[in-house]
């Protein structure tokens, strides 16, 4: 069994163990869960030094790393095929890290502890599985496995409108994934494995344009397929106008689940574009890149304005995620090496920064039991440590130089500007709006007269700091020296950029 299989299925095993522990011992459950995610993180980190940053992956089977292949359903030529390249490995690291940090953040959950942790671990299996799959069928199965735990995690452990938010999330994402199912089948019946001539679900074979045949030669079929995938992934990102599930789900979900939603699940959408839509349908990607860039711009501006209008702190962070995922959309649709690198780096950085923001919202909510920005004021005197770390996260989010958000946003705009000048110039305006709403929020919450109700609020505690400090360190380090993560993806993303932007077939 290779490391990727272990990474994927250790959480599932942990989920079973957790479910079998005695109900009367909630702490056993929490520690088991923490141990499981710690093992996963340790394995993921142990792969870091072994990862060869020179190998490109993407559509080249030979340069994928930690590859495992096994026949699963021979009748349909479905294989258990996993591997990572510079696109998926940063995402795997991000997932393992955030999942580990989310367990301490969920320590206070007392309702059905076993159920919560079992669902959470199952979710981790789905997420890591999605990132490492190289077989479309396998990818689809993992993609769908994420739905069920998420539904229950929002629906059972969420806030007052949890039932509505959970079903909305479920229905939206299911629409996207069944569309993806049809596209997957069309690809299957029109793509042949060059070696055996059989139909195949192997994504790498699907990327070889010379393996396409049948109705894939028809232009309108390719357009329909591109948009089938587009809707599936855009719902997950979420791209306007498919974003309405996100504020509901984020606001109602418990803190740790918001972290996972914003930190990892949103990246599934853009990851899907980069892993599937772009290399499999490069011609359509080029045709509709302008559309993607436009939607990215809409997301940036619309998300930022919506964030500004929020009175609920968590909703503000949720809309800021929509805005920040717009940078990813804009940058990747430029198809330039800088844009591609910026997009994936932004995915990673947004994952860490937004995780901090949601954790910080959780900290204040646990104390004050509400999230109305206007209800606070003068917290700087009461919770100085909390102020410090919140300010760091806010500044990282608005792209202050020296913090990780700056580097990736800069790369995004640098990459996008030569191709989409107007869109980029308008999008840069989004930064100003972002700065405005974040600073304004900071001011309203921390400065001014202290609300007498909150004069005795305890400052941030050790457990909470334990979840925040690692993220803060990453944010600062990557802000000064992005190479540890950028280096992982550079060769793959540069290759992908060439693959998609070159006209014609690339062998």
């Amino acid at each position: 069994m290779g490391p990727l299989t272990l990474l994927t299925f250790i959480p599932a095993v942990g989920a079973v163990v957790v479910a079998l522990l005695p109900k009367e011992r909630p702490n056993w459950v929490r520690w088991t869960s923490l141990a499981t995610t710690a093992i996963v993180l340790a394995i993921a980190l142990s792969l870091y030094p072994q990862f060869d940053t020179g190998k490109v992956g993407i559509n080249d089977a030979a340069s994928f790393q930690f590859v495992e292949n096994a026949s699963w359903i021979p009748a349909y030529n479905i294989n258990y095929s996993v591997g990572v390249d510079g696109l998926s490995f940063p995402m795997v690291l991000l997932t393992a890290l955030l999942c580990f940090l989310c367990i301490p953040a969920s320590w206070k959950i007392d309702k059905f502890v076993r159920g919560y942790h079992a669902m959470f671990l199952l979710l981790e299996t789905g997420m890591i599985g999605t990132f490492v799959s190289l077989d479309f069928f396998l990818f689809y199965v993992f993609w769908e496995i994420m739905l069920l735990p998420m539904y229950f995690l929002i629906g059972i452990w969420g806030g007052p409108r949890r039932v509505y938010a959970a079903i909305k999330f479920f229905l939206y994402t299911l629409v996207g994934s069944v569309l993806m199912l049809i596209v997957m089948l069309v690809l299957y019946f029109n793509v042949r494995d060059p070696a055996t001539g059989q139909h195949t679900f192997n994504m790498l074979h699907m990327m070889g344009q010379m393996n396409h045949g049948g109705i894939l030669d028809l232009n309108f079929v390719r357009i329909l397929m591109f948009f089938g995938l587009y809707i599936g992934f855009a719902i997950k990102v979420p791209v306007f106008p498919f974003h309405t599930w996100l504020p509901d789900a984020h606001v109602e979900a418990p803190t740790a689940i918001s972290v996972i939603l914003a930190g990892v699940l949103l990246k599934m959408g853009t990851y899907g574009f980069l892993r599937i839509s772009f290399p499999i349908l490069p011609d359509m990607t080029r045709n509709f890149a302008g559309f993607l860039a436009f939607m990215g711009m809409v997301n940036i501006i619309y998300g930022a304005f919506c964030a500004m209008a929020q009175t609920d702190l968590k909703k503000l962070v949720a809309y800021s995620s929509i805005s920040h995922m717009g940078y990813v959309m804009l940058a990747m649709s430029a198809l330039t090496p800088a844009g591609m690198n910026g997009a994936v780096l932004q995915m990673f950085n947004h994952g860490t920064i937004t995780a901090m923001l949601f954790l910080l919202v959780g900290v204040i909510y646990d104390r004050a039991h509400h999230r109305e920005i206007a209800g606070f004021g003068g917290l700087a005197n009461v919770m100085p440590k909390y102020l410090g770390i919140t300010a760091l996260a806010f500044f990282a989010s608005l792209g202050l130089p020296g913090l990780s958000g700056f580097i990736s946003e800069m790369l995004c705009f640098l990459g996008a500007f030569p191709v989409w000048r107007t869109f980029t110039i308008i999008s840069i305006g989004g930064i100003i709006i972002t700065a405005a709403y974040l600073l304004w929020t900071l001011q309203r919450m921390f400065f001014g007269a202290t609300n007498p109700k909150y004069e005795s609020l305890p400052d941030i505690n050790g457990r909470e700091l334990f979840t925040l400090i690692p993220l803060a360190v990453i944010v600062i380090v990557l802000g000064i020296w992005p190479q540890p993560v950028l280096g992982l993806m550079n060769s793959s993303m540069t290759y992908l950029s060439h693959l998609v932007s070159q006209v014609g077939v690339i062998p």
Partner: protein
Amino acid sequence: MIPAGLELDLVACLPELILTAGLLVLLILSLLFRERRGQVMAIGGSLLLLAAAIVSLSGDERVGAYLFGSVVQDGVTLFFRVFFCCGTILCLWLLLPSFRKDAEPFLLMISGVLGMFLLAGANDLVTLFVALELVSIPSYVLAGYRRLDVRSGEAALKYILYGALSSGLMIYGMAFLYGLTSTTMLPEIAAKLSTAPNQQSMLLIALILVLAGIGYKIAMVPFHFWCPDVYEGSPTAVTAFLSVLPKAAGLAALYRMIPVFQTLDTSYGVSALLIVSIASAVTMTFGNLGAIWQTSLKRLLAYSSIAHAGYILMGFAVLAGIGEVDLYWQTSEAIFFYLVTYLFMNLGAFLIVDWVERHKGGEGIERFRGLGRTDPIPAILLAVFLFSLTGIPPLAGFIGKFLLFAALVKAKMFALAVIAIANTVVSLYYYVRVIRAMFLDDPAPEIVVPGSGFRWGSVVGILSLATVIPTLILGVWWGPLFEWIHLRTW
């Protein structure tokens, strides 16, 4: 005079003969026992059906037409026979908790299987019709088995009235077919119709009438009106039986009629593909939309079973419309696989509904509120079955749907695929309503019956294992069953 070859014919009919003889033995046995009658019948019936299944399995090499060509034995016959046996064994045990002192429901079910066995191999209009009636008549009696329950009586009456009408329609259509070809043998009908492509309008009428008759059996819209009322009124265990086995029998009959459907080739663009596609789209859409508003779980599952008939009809649309051999068998496989997954997940769902009905005093959705807290095991089981019915991986229902969609995509029938997608999303909504009631809502204080004690060792416990394990395994490791079906069909 004894026609030559009759001896061999009887060997081919061994499963039916065994069933008949076994039924008589069981009938006598039932008179000897009084207290534990149900148990004796369930055990005896299971052994009998198991024997019939094993004998059927050994018939692999006796492929051909028997009894003057009226019964055909091939891989498909074999698949259906084994399927009917397995399904009915599960249903017999499902009956047991409700009918511990009665023998009749068990005997009626087994006699229904006799009809299904004949149907699986029906190669002739008369055999097909008689077999279908042999399936129907025990079903009518079963639906009305609770003699003192008004709703049960109503269910039986509705069932038999609609049934009589649709049988009439079907035999009328069959008369047309006979008139067109002057034979009752299905292969000959198909052959004659394809070489003499006149009289297409008459054929169209005949086929629509036949489809109406079969459509009634499988609860195809617009012949589904009986279905929710009958399902609600019948004892729950009987409903479980009705929702799977007679439906599969109807589909077996339709499968045998497909060669005749394929000959339809009107000059004005109405093809069998179109007719069955419309039937499929309308059936799944009505089924799913109807289910949204239901508050009774039995009615909800009734509408859901209508929707599932619609999904399976998608496969039949491909069969009826496209003559390509590869695609024909691939689609057949998909249909058969779907039937197997449907058998386990649907029976499983009814099993838990039956359990709740007996322990919580009803099967309205309010009885399921907070079940996840009071009785977590049945609640989790029901959640698995419902998610599987929705078609969410990694559960069996997903693979069934995946294979059907694959056939559809290969046949390039994208419009129907998109309708099916929309339906899947709608179906999630109402299945999740039940999940929500069980896990997300608090128990209704006036309804809570604490400590209903679900035990794995009980009949229900073992049955739930027998249904949930295939539902889980077929979602992940479906290769072996698929290969088995593959060998039976190609």
